[in-house]
Every structure is written in structure tokens, then in C-alpha cells.
């Protein structure tokens, strides 16, 4: 392949622009659990994003939205939740209800 540098630069520019042009690229937002605390406790996301909870504790936790989704988080493991609808959600750990977090999902 004798790709000339100008062409390569053009392609990089073009592909880069294309990536930016996609209006709402889905993101993965990470929340760490360390010593029974969700960090950060508040997250802002949009529909299509995914939350990944990383449990650093040696304890089983959950991320439970009352009357809604629940993600089980075994010790030293992570779990994911795709955000499918907009809204404002409080969540807790079912086993340790003093652990509290909040998710705001924009359309």
C-alpha cells in the first residue's frame, strides 16, 4: 500500500469529522463503588448511554431503581445498565439502603 500522507491526513480529518457529526454518540459512564459509596453520586446522561458500576468492595451490592431496573454487582465485579428512557431516577443498594445515587437521563 502506497497511501500518500495527504490522503491519509484527509481520511483522518474526514473520519474525525464524521465521528463529531454523529449527534448523540452513546457513552459509557462509570460509577465506582468504594467502601459503600457510589462515586460520583449524581450522573447526567442521555438516552442510549450506558452506566457501568465498578464494585471495588468485597461485598455484594446492587444498583436498584425503586420499581424499576436492578443491576446486581458481585464483589470486585462490574455491571452495566443501558439507559432507554429519559427521566430522573433515585437508586439505592438493596442490601445497604444507605447507599444512594441519582441518574438524570436526557432525551
Amino acid at each position, binding site marked *: 500500500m502506497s497511501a500518500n500522507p495527504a490522503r491519509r491526513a484527509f481520511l483522518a480529518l474526514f473520519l474525525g469529522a464524521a465521528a463529531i457529526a454523529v449527534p448523540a454518540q452513546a457513552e459509557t459512564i462509570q460509577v465506582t463503588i468504594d467502601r459503600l459509596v457510589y462515586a460520583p453520586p449524581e450522573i447526567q446522561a442521555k438516552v442510549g448511554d450506558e452506566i457501568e458500576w465498578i464494585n471495588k468492595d*468485597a*461485598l455484594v451490592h446492587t444498583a436498584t431503581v425503586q420499581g424499576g431496573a436492578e443491576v446486581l454487582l458481585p464483589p470486585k465485579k462490574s455491571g452495566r445498565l443501558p439507559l432507554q428512557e429519559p427521566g430522573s431516577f433515585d437508586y439505592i443498594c438493596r442490601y*445497604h439502603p*444507605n447507599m444512594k445515587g441519582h441518574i438524570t437521563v436526557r432525551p
Partner: protein
Amino acid sequence: MTIRLATAAAAIALLLGGNWALAADKPTDPQIAHIAYTAGVIDIEAAKQAIATSKNKTVVEFAESMVRDHESVNKQALDLVKKLNVTPEDNDTSKALAQAAETKRAELAKLTGDDFDKAYVENEAAYHKQVNGALETLLIPSAQNTELKSLLETGLKLFQGHQQHAEHVATELK
């Protein structure tokens, strides 16, 4: 020289005497480790009794989470005392806790069904509240080693969670 040594010995004896008097109301790290570990063992045994006795899914699940969490914390506590080369030391507080637990276990053993479930869960809420009070006012402030203090602080947060969980299950049973 001999006189000076004797004076030093007397001074040390006085110092130890003073520390000992202090130890009567303020537990030492080896005693704190023993109290915290004992409190965990008591709750694991209570949970095992509940798993064997209860037919209620919520109660059994709660008890299973108590076994899981307290075993995990006690393992961390054992790892820490080993690392610090501290030997947990039995003491009056540990003995009083164990004795009260024995009485409670016998009391619960006479109950079945809903009566058992309610009594177990209510005791769990009360027991964790009592342990949390001791952690906050006595054990954490008395702990000298920073790692031990930190483990106790995490323990407090965990047991506060257990207390809330127990209170939540208790309202479901009503």
C-alpha cells in the same frame, strides 16, 4: 545506678498502672478487634438460625446477606490483625455480647413462622443499632491504629446499611 533503675521501674509501673485504669473504660486495639469480630460472629449465627427456621423468602434473603457481609468483614478483620501482628483479646464487652446473644438465640428458638420472622428481624434492627452506637461512641474513637479505625468506619457504614435493611424488612412483615 541501682537506685536509678529502681526509680525507672517504679515510674514504668506507675505509667502502666495509669494505662490500665484507662483501659477499664477505653478498650485497647486488641480488645476492639475482639469485640468487632465477636459482634460479627453473633450476627452470622443469628442469620444461620433464621435461614434454618424461616419460610419467608424476604427474611431468608436478608439473613443470607447478613452471613455474606459479616463473613466478608470478619475475613478483612482477621487479615488486618494478622498483618498488624495483633492478637485479639477477649474482654468483658465481648463476653457480655456473647451472653446476650445466647439468651436471644434461646428465646428465638421457641418461636416459629411469622412470630419468629418478626422477632428475628426486629432484633436485627435493634442489634445493629446497638453495635453502631458502640462503634460511633466508643470503638472508633478508642482505636489507635489508623487501619483498624478505617476498617471500623467502613464497618459502621455497612452496619448502618444493615440496620436500615432490617427496618425495611420489618415494615414489610407488618
